[in-house]
C-alpha cells in the first residue's frame, strides 16, 4: 500500500520552528495553521486552548474580514490554531496566529472548565479520561507544559505568494525563544475491560464508545491495523455497520477510526448513537463483531477490498486544505507497506482489541436503561472470559 502525499516544501527556521508550505488547489485561499505538540498528563491542554481562544478574540473581526475565522482545536497530543483566509491575507494571518501563540501565558489561570454539552462529546471525553487518566501526582504542580519553537510547526496550504509567506513566518517567529521541551505522554497499560456508565437524565438515546490503545504509525502493525479498522467498522460496508445499521437498524451512523497524535500515541474507537431501548443489543453486537474478527481470518476478497478502500480514502483525505495540513502535522509520508493477509487482520484484532484492553463508555439515562445495565455488564464479562 502506498500513501500518496504531494511534495512538501519544508524548511527549518531558527530557533527551530518547523515550516511546511504546500501549494495546493485552485481556490484563492490559504489555510494557515500553527500546530503545537502538546502531550501532557496533567490536563493542561484544554486550559491552554481556552487561553488561546481568548487571546484570539481581539483578532476575530480582522480574520472574518479576510474571509476566514480563528479556530482552536484540541486533539490527542496537539493544539491547532487555524485560520483559512483569502490568499492575499496569508501573511497577515501568520502574524496574528503568532501573536496569539506568544501571548497565551499572560492570560492563563482563570479559564473555566467547560463541561461537554451533548451525549457524543460526553462519551468522547469520558473515553479520553479513561484511556489517558490525568496524573494526580506532584509532577503536575509545576505549571503548564512548555510551548516553544521546538514543539511548533507552521503549516500553510493553498494558494499563496511563497516569498511573502516565508518573510511573514521569519518576522513572526524568528525571535521566539525556546521555553523547554514538552514531555510526550502515552496511554497507560490498559487493565480491563473498563465499562463506564455516565448518567444523563432524560436522554432518549445512548452514546456508545468502545476502544483501545494501539501501536502508532511507526509500528509495523499499523498498516494492518488500518485494514483491520476498515474491515471492522471503518467503511459503510464494514462488519459492524452492516450489522447494527443495515441488518438491525440500531444505529444510523456508527463508525470506527484510528486516532493518532503527533507523538505516535494511537487508539482505536467504535462510536454509535442508538435508541435507548436497543443500547444493550447494540453494544453486544459490537463486541461480538470484535470477537469474530479476532477468532477467524477474513477472506482475501474482504481484505483486498479494504486495502483498495484505504488507498482511495487516503487520497480523499488529502483532497482538502485541512486534510493536507493534518497530514503534514502528523508527518504522513509516502511509504510502501506490504499487503495484509486475512491472518494479519485477525491477529491484530485479537491482539490489540483483546478484552483486557478495551475501554467501554455508555452515556445515557441509566435509570431508564434499567435491566439493560446488568445485561451490558454481563455481555462485557462474558467477552472477558469466553467459554
Amino acid at each position, binding site marked *: 500500500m502506498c500513501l500518496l502525499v504531494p511534495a512538501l516544501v519544508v524548511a527549518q527556521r531558527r530557533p527551530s520552528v518547523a515550516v511546511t508550505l504546500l501549494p495546493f*488547489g*485552485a*481556490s*484563492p*485561499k490559504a489555510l494557515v495553521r500553527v500546530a503545537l505538540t502538546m502531550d501532557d498528563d496533567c490536563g493542561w491542554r484544554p486550559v491552554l486552548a481556552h487561553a488561546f481562544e481568548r*487571546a484570539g478574540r*481581539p*483578532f*476575530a*473581526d*480582522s*480574520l*472574518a*474580514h*479576510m*474571509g*476566514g*475565522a*480563528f479556530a482552536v482545536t484540541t486533539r490527542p497530543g496537539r493544539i491547532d490554531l487555524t485560520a*483559512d483566509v*483569502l*490568499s*492575499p*491575507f496569508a501573511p*497577515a494571518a501568520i*502574524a*496574528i496566529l503568532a*501573536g496569539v501563540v506568544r*501571548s497565551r501565558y499572560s492570560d492563563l489561570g482563570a479559564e473555566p472548565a467547560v463541561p461537554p454539552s451533548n451525549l457524543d462529546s460526553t462519551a468522547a471525553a469520558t473515553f479520553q479520561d479513561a484511556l489517558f487518566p490525568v496524573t494526580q501526582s506532584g509532577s503536575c504542580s509545576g505549571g503548564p507544559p512548555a510551548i516553544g519553537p521546538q514543539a511548533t510547526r507552521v503549516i500553510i496550504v493553498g*494558494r499563496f505568494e511563497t516569498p511573502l509567506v516565508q518573510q511573514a513566518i521569519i518576522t513572526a517567529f524568528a525571535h521566539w525563544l525556546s521555553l523547554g521541551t514538552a514531555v510526550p505522554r502515552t496511554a497507560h497499560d490498559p487493565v480491563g475491560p473498563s465499562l463506564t456508565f455516565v448518567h444523563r437524565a*432524560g436522554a*432518549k*438515546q445512548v452514546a456508545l464508545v468502545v476502544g483501545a490503545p494501539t501501536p502508532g504509525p511507526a509500528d509495523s502493525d499499523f498498516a494492518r491495523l488500518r485494514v483491520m479498522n476498515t474491515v471492522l467498522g471503518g*467503511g*459503510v*460496508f464494514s462488519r459492524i455497520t452492516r450489522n447494527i*445499521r*443495515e*441488518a438491525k*437498524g*440500531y*444505529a*444510523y451512523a456508527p463508525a470506527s477510526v484510528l486516532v493518532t497524535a503527533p507523538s505516535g500515541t494511537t487508539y482505536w474507537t467504535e462510536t454509535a*448513537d*442508538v*435508541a435507548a431501548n436497543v443500547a444493550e443489543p447494540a453494544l453486544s453486537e459490537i463486541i461480538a463483531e470484535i470477537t469474530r474478527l479476532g477468532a477467524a481470518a477474513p477472506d482475501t476478497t474482504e481484505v*483486498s*477490498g*479494504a486495502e*483498495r*478502500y484505504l*488507498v*482511495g*480514502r487516503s*487520497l*480523499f483525505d*488529502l*483532497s*482538502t486544505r485541512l*486534510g493536507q495540513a493534518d497530514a503534514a502535522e502528523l508527518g504522513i509520508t509516502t511509504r510502501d507497506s506490504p499487503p495484509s493477509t486475512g491472518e494479519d487482520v485477525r491477529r491484530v484484532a485479537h491482539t490489540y482489541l483483546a478484552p483486557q484492553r478495551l475501554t467501554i463508555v455508555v452515556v445515557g439515562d441509566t435509570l431508564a436503561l434499567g435491566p439493560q445495565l446488568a445485561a451490558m455488564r454481563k455481555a462485557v464479562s462474558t467477552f472477558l472470559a469466553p467459554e
Partner: protein
Amino acid sequence: MTRLLAALALALATSTAAAQPMRYPVIPIQYEHLPNGLKVVLAPDSSASLVMIGVYYAIGQRTEPVGREGFAHLFEHLMFEGSTNLPPGALIRLIESNGGTFNGNTRFDFTDYFEITPPAALERMLWAEADRMRGLVVDDAALGRQKAIVKSEIRLSYVNQPDGGFPWLDVPQVANRNWQNAHDFRGRPDEIDSATLADARAFHSAYYVPNNAVLVVSGAFRVSEAQAWIDKYFSEIPRGDVVRRPDVTEPPQTAERRGVRIDSLAKRPVLAVAFHMPPRHTRAFWATVLIDQLLIQGEDSWLAPDAVFGGTNLQGNFYNYEGPMLWTIAARYRSLDQTDTIVRSIQDALARLRKQPVDSTALRVARQKAHSAYYDILDNLGGFGRLDLLASFALFDDDPAEINRIEASLDEVTAADIQAAARDYLAPKQATIYVRRPA
C-alpha cells in the same frame, strides 16, 4: 501590544491595497444532452487526484407528491438496495472496494447520488449509476430494511435531539403556504410504513428517468474516455414520460407570520427570523448574498453579538436550489424573556440597511467574504461542491456555465442594490418569527 496588532490587522483587512482580488480559475465545461434527455456535464480538473461522479434527479423533498411526506428521502435510501446487476449490498461493496467514497442526499429540488473515487474506477462507477437508473430491483425485505433505517435516522437525528431539525425543517412549515414548501420533509413514521413496493416502482418510473436527470463527471479524468463510457452505458436507457414539476410558487407575504413550538428535550429557547429570498438571477438576489455576509456570517457581522447563525437554503447554499427559499437568521439564547430583544436587534439591523446605503468599506468587506464563502462551497468535500453547482445549474437552468459567472455577479452588487433588496424583501411584514422553547 495585542491592541496595536489588532488595530493593524483590522486596517490591513479593510484596505483596498491589501486584497488585490484573486479569482477561481475558469472551470472548463463540456455540456450536452443525450438523445434520451440525459444532461451530461464534463468538467476535468488538472489539479485533482480523484474523479467525482454525480447523478442528480429533479425530484426533491419539496417536489414529492402530495400525501407522500418523506417519500423522496425513503426512496433515496432504496436506491442503494439493488438494481438489475447489483444485488443488495453489491453497490456499496463495489464503490468501497474500488477506493471510493459515496453518499446520497435528498434536498429541496433534487436527490443526488455521488461517488468520489480514484480515476481507474470511473468506468465501473458510470456502469453502476446507469444500472440503477435503468431499473430498481428491490423486494419487501429491502423496503422494510430501509424503512427501519429511515425511521432510525428520524428518531436519532430529530425526534430525540434537542432542537432537532431546527431551523431547516421547522421554519419552512411556518413561513410557507404552499404544501410543496410547507410539509414535513422528513415524513412521519406511519406514512413511511405505508409505502409499498408498487409505490417504489412507480416512483422510480416517474422520476428516475434520464430526461429528469443530469450526470456530472468532475476531477481527474479524460474527457474522450468518459464520453465513450457514458454513451455506452447511459444512451440506451429509455426516455421516460415527461416529468411535470408541481407548482411550488408562494403567494406574496403581506403580514408578519409567527409560530411557536414546545420542545420537551430543550434546555433553552431558539428563535428564527426568516424572509423569502428574491428570485434567483436578479440583482436583489445577489445583493442578499452580500447582506447575509454583512449581517450574520462571521465574527465581524453586525449581528454577531447576538450569537446568530443561519443563511439561505440551510441544507445547501445560495446556488443549489430552484423556487421559493428562505433566508433565515437563527439564535440560541438563555431565556424566553430575551426573545423580543433579539428580534428587535435583528429588525434594527435590517432597518439600518433600508435607511441608507452601506459605506464602501462595508461593501468591499462583504464582497470579500462572499467570494471566500463561495470558494468554501466549491471546495466542500475536496471539490464535490463544484460538481454540486454544475449539476444544479444544468438541472435548473440548462446552463452549467453559470458557475463561471458567479464571481462577476458578486462584484456587480452596489450599495444601492443592497438598500433596495432590504427595502423590497426584508421589511417587517415579510418576516416569519418562529420560537422553539423548552417545556
